[in-house]
């Protein structure tokens, strides 16, 4: 009884981000980079750990941005890919003694394949139906991880403890600091890759599909290929993030990868600005730090405070941090003209 016909000239479900606004300007990028590199030198190990998690979740939100903001496919299932990446790393490290750095490409590859395969049946679904399918995946994952069949590898409900690596070559820095810089390098690499992906032909194909799938198909874009590719890439990056997360937290267990994580990543994407890659880190900061702030304000009502803060954010900036950045850019532009 609702929309019996969708006219594809209606506003698309996911709105486009203008190309030149897709990334930060060179100046801002360098400043942010400098901050990220210098900050750990001045703070305690615990804060370095939090910053590492910031990067890890930032990667996961980035992956979701490529999928939803880039190719318009709605996903509430990223926690499943994150979990697969985390467990891959953990199992390879603990059962096979593989070096932690090598586990990451393996995790990424396995998740890429997994995402690509999941993308196949998802082709026929869109909007709320795709949301349900990805939701199904996210709820299935913790239960699969608990399965008796796999218990020997996964540790079942008890999970697996992961050993944190020391800095190589006997460098005199803490484990946390080493892991942070290691994660930072990977994050920058993936970020540059993602930006280039979205600017490339594949990226344009993604966005064409997002904006108007039928038109894109009519123009000869292989919709099936690109949609599943988007899922694969997104899953792969999330898998790498999961692996890094497992090493940072030193523990994997089914309870850590529930639908709550998928919902948090989704919120991170919205707050950061859908489709705006630099916003991923802001979204990540939101989902890590705002719950802490909410808890500080009121322990009994921490959920409510979080909800209220979230509402305030989406009322003030419905398009997320991207909106803030655009306003700032606009004002800077005005200043420059003077």
């Amino acid at each position, binding site marked *: 009884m609702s929309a019996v016909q969708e006219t594809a000239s209606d506003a698309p479900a996911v709105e486009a981000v203008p190309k030149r606004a897709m990334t930060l300007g060179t100046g801002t990028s360098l400043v942010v980079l400098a901050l990220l590199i210098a900050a750990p030198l001045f703070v*305690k*190990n*615990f*804060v370095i*750990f*939090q910053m590492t*998690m910031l990067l890890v979740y930032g990667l996961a939100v980035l992956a979701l941005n490529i999928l939803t903001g880039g190719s318009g496919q709605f996903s509430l299932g990223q926690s499943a890919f994150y979990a697969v990446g985390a467990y891959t790393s953990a199992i390879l490290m603990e059962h096979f003694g593989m070096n932690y750095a090598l586990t990451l490409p393996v995790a990424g590859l396995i998740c890429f394949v997994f995402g690509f395969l999941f993308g196949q049946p998802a082709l026929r679904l869109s909007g709320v139906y795709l949301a349900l399918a990805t939701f199904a995946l996210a*709820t299935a994952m913790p*239960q699969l991880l*608990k399965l008796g069949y796999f218990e020997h590898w996964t540790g*079942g*409900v*008890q*999970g697996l*403890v992961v050993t944190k690596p020391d800095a190589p070559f006997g460098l005199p820095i803490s484990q946390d600091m080493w892991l942070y810089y290691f994660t930072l390098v990977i994050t920058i690499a993936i970020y540059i890759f993602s930006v280039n992906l979205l600017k490339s032909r594949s990226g344009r194909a993604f966005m064409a599909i997002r904006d108007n799938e039928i038109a894109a198909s009519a123009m000869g874009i292989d919709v099936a290929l690109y949609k599943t590719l988007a899922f694969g890439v997104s899953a792969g990056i999330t898998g790498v993030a999961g692996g890094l*997360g497992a090493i940072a*937290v*030193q*523990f994997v*267990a089914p*309870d*850590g990868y*529930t639908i*709550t*994580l998928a919902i948090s990543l989704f919120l991170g994407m919205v707050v950061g600005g859908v489709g705006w890659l630099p916003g991923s880190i802001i979204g990540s900061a939101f989902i890590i730090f705002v*719950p802490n702030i909410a*808890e500080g304000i009121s*322990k*009994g009502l*921490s*959920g409510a405070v979080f909800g209220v803060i979230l509402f305030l954010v989406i009322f003030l900036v419905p398009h997320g941090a991207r909106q803030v950045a655009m306003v700032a850019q606009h004002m800077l532009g005005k200043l420059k003209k003077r």
Partner: protein
Amino acid sequence: MLSRPVFPAAAFAAAIITLASTTGAAFAQKKYDTGATDTEIKIGNIMPYSGPASAYGVIGKTEAAYFNKINAEGGINGRKITFISYDDGYSPPKAVEQARKLVESDEVLLIFNPLGTPSNTAIQKYMNARKVPQLFVATGATKWNDPKDFPWTMGWQPSYQSEARIYAKYLMKEAPNARISVLYQNDDFGKDYLKGLKDGLGAKASMIIAEESYETSEPTIDNHIVKLRASGADAFISITTPKFAAQAIKKLAEIEWRPLHIVSNVSASVGSVIKPAGFENSQGVLSAAYAKDGADPQWDNDPGMKKFFAFLEKYDPEANKLDGSVVYGYGAAQTMVKVLQLCGDNLTRENVMKQAASLKNFAPDTLLPGVSINTSPTDFAPIEQLQMMRFKGEKWDLFGDIISGELSN
């Protein structure tokens, strides 16, 4: 640098001073680790105040109220307790973050009663590597009693396996031909229990003819009950958390199935489980207990419980005294206070563990008469005793001896 004539004198003076400060002043000497000072002891805690296990958050609240009471009464050896409790939402990565925050940022002396097996497993390695006490963890998983590998981690409540073994013993004695069906929660709690049950039955584990697991995301376990009944069992072991235990009791009554019904201690609270499920439906249900139930009128005049009720009235009036978690929090907090009192002025982490590992027959107000806390350097399981009970009328009737569920590790 010191010139030659002064040097020997200075050394001599230093020696005198050192000697003076070590002899005869051992009791006046104060030793502190991070988190303890002349005026303050900082205690950390991690609880699920949000998320799927938020029902247990009330334990943290009760403990905070208890420490307020202690502070109002002068503190511990003159020091006030600062109780810092964080929410982990029952998520292991968040628990790791909060533990690190407590230890590295808030600089607590120890972490007390962190809740949840996954969360505690996540932080165990870190706590032991850092040599910070992970004391009286709020989970019944059996693995916390391992002083050899994890000397800084200690449990508190009787382990699930030891409780299950007690039921196994009971079954083998009272119902040796029983056909047992089991409903268990598909997580560490359920699986640990099931293992204890099977180990306890040993060669007679074949008495179990049907097992059903359920997830906490299922709205109701009614269909599992239907299935278990269809197996023809005449005994039903309910390894369930409160909501599902109540559903089970109700469903059993609805379908008029009356097996020998044993419910785990976790769900034995009159206020949180039996009353909502219906007294008339719960007649004859068996369980075991180590603590007194706040809803049970037989303890109304018990001196320990009177103190507990007085505490609630003054420091935590909003608390639901029928909630087993509230009684739990009180008992655990009282144990913590005892350990800190025994530390005296030596508030190093090492001494905290040492005192915790040398409790002898300590009985908090809320434990059953006859049940007490005993620890030793090789025994990191403070409470190991339970007494079985049968529900009759509107309360639990304790019967039999106090049984030790000690495991021969």
